[in-house]
């Protein structure tokens, strides 16, 4: 029901600036995931939107209203905390009712909302229990239920799954996805460091690093067109292979070659000079084929092989002191350690990054 617009949001603790001016437009009903490594500022940004942190610069608009000075409870938000943050001395029902009681809602209204939330989350049998008598997954559902009861315009999740075990995490992830579908008007902002959660839940992902936005896009945009080296390596598992290459331009065509390797010809619309000099070539493990020697871009020896049945992951040492290239191939190849292999990236799946690490839009000829 509400859009969230951040303009130049800054947050500093004394001399230390955590957020360096974040601009972001979140449409109403959108599911946006903030993802990034520890200390990138994603939780701080979420807490700033919630109003738990005062920003030191910029504005936060919720539903078109500048909310910098509006207290958290009046912003129309609800938050699910990493530790659930249930009130330990209150029953499940009282936990869910607390916010409504604080706003002096009539009793029938409180009962109706609790019944509805409990129904959605299958908590009805546990309403009279204390949090300590619930399992981790149930506690998480109560925390979500408490948020639902507030009937928020914007739903905030702060790493809600990180305290759950692996199996429960998948199940709860699916529940959150369903919840999102059942509340199409509610904007959801979700913080995680887990790229699987980000990829599966998000309409759009915001990748943060060191207090800056690195890229904003749909999961597939981030996967297929990372804007820079950081995003390229952060999204996808195993991570994208990065090989240093040398570029030179002649007659309007760039020639890009790894050290002592075969050259690729490339073209770009964004200024050919960007393809000259030291570049990085990126290719995802799943976009590398085993080929004949004549067609190979890299050749090397398999130093380690992980056979997972459906796929096999090879670590290929291409010499020259570079990082081994990781290759993901169908499991039936059954290649063993010590074999020599010839590798070629699929043409459409090559990423080129300039010396600053920014992606260069290009075509391989």
């Amino acid at each position, binding site marked *: 029901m509400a859009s969230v617009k951040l303009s130049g949001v800054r947050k500093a603790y004394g001399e230390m600036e955590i957020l360096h001016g974040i601009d972001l437009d979140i449409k109403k009903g959108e599911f946006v995931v903030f993802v990034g490594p520890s200390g990138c500022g994603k939780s701080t940004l979420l807490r700033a939107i*919630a*109003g*738990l942190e005062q920003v030191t610069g910029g504005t936060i608009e919720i539903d078109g209203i500048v909310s910098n000075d509006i*207290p*958290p*409870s*009046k912003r129309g*938000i*609800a*938050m699910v*905390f*990493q*530790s659930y*943050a*249930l*009130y*330990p*001395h*209150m029953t499940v029902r009282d936990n869910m009712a*607390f*916010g409504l009681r*604080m*706003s002096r809602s009539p009793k029938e209204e409180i009962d109706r909302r609790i019944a509805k939330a409990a129904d959605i989350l299958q908590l009805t049998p546990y309403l009279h229990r204390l949090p300590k008598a619930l399992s981790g997954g149930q506690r998480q559902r109560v925390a979500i239920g*408490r948020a639902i009861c*507030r009937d928020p315009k914007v739903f905030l999740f702060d790493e809600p799954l990180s305290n759950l075990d692996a199996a429960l995490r998948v199940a709860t992830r699916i529940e959150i996805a369903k919840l999102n579908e059942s509340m199409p008007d509610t904007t959801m902002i979700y913080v995680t460091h887990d790229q699987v959660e980000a990829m599966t839940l998000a309409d759009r992902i915001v990748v943060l690093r060191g207090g800056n936005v690195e890229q904003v896009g749909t999961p597939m945009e981030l996967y297929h067109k990372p804007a820079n080296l950081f995003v390229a390596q952060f999204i996808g598992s195993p991570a994208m292979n990065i090989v240093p290459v040398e570029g030179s331009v002649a007659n309007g065509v760039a020639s890009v070659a790894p050290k002592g390797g075969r050259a690729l010809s490339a073209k770009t619309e964004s200024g050919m000079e960007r393809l000259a000099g030291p570049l990085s070539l990126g290719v995802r493990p799943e976009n590398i084929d085993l080929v004949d020697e004549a067609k190979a871009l890299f050749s090397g020896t398999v130093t380690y092989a992980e056979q997972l049945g459906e796929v096999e992951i090879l670590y290929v040492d291409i010499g020259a002191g570079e990082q081994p290239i990781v290759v993901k191939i169908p499991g039936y190849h059954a290649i063993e350690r010590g074999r020599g292999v010839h590798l070629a990236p699929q043409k459409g799946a090559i990423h080129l990054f300039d010396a600053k690490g920014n992606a260069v839009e290009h075509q391989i000829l």
Partner: protein
Amino acid sequence: MTQQVITATITILIGVAGSILYFVGTNWLLDRIFPFRDGASPNAARNHRITTAVRPWLFLGPALLALGVYLIYPVFETLRLSLYNRDTTAFVGFDNYAWLVGDAGFRESILNNFMWLLVVPTAATFFGLMAAVLTDRIWWGNIAKSLVFMPMAISFVGASVIWKFVYDYRAAGSEQIGILNAFVVWLGFEPQAWIAVPVWNNFFLMVILIWIQTGFAMVILSAALRGIPEETMEAAVIDGANDFQIFFHIMVPQIWGTIAVVWTTITIVVLKVFDIVFAMTNGQWNSQVLGNLMYDWMFRGFDFGRGAAIAIVIMVLVTPIMISNIRRAKAETKGH
């Protein structure tokens, strides 16, 4: 002086060496009698079992003995004394207790103790909680905490001396050296002999114990407050609770167990209160309490029967609170 220092040092050395000798010696002896380490002994497994069963008792022995002699035995001896006459020459049954019921001094003490019981633990816990909450919000909180805690380091008698100056009375017209009277005179009122004003003087004495115990309450409650998960308070902020509502609905219920332990602990101190009354009024002007009454009969009146009977009454009053306190502390530690 030098002689005393030397004696004290020697005593300490003998004590420590004796303890070490006892533990090492009994341990060595046990291993000798029931050998199992060499593996050669045919009963190695059985001996090992015996030594593990016996060793705790050997090591606990001295402590148990000391507790028995200095704590358990006196309880029974006091009980016995309370059933005898003043110099323990004739059995009198429950006469001493019957006398207690009829004694005006005893009834006054019970009433005063009851007032102490109502006021001091409540006030000390309340002020301690306030100090714990408020000092967390100011930059000089740690200094404030040290100041509030400092009276804890002063003995009850020392504190009484300090407060005797606070309440000091000089005749009207002369210079008041007591800060309370100085203030009262400055306001234009007559100076009062505070500790000699019946009924009210009890409260002036209670202030001293509150002053001392607030620091204790603050330290314990402050630690408990720190243990409250920050996120529960943030969740309450989002739920729209104001500072007061967060305090009463979220913080206090989460530390309720600790508040109860602090309250009961101070209650026990109050029931045993003696030094303050002894040093300030010695029970005059209707300020008598059980502890001082017992001392009066035991060591001034040399009536062992009546003194012991009062001691038993104090013990009976303290016991239930102690039991509930221990239970709660146990439940508290089990809960985590």
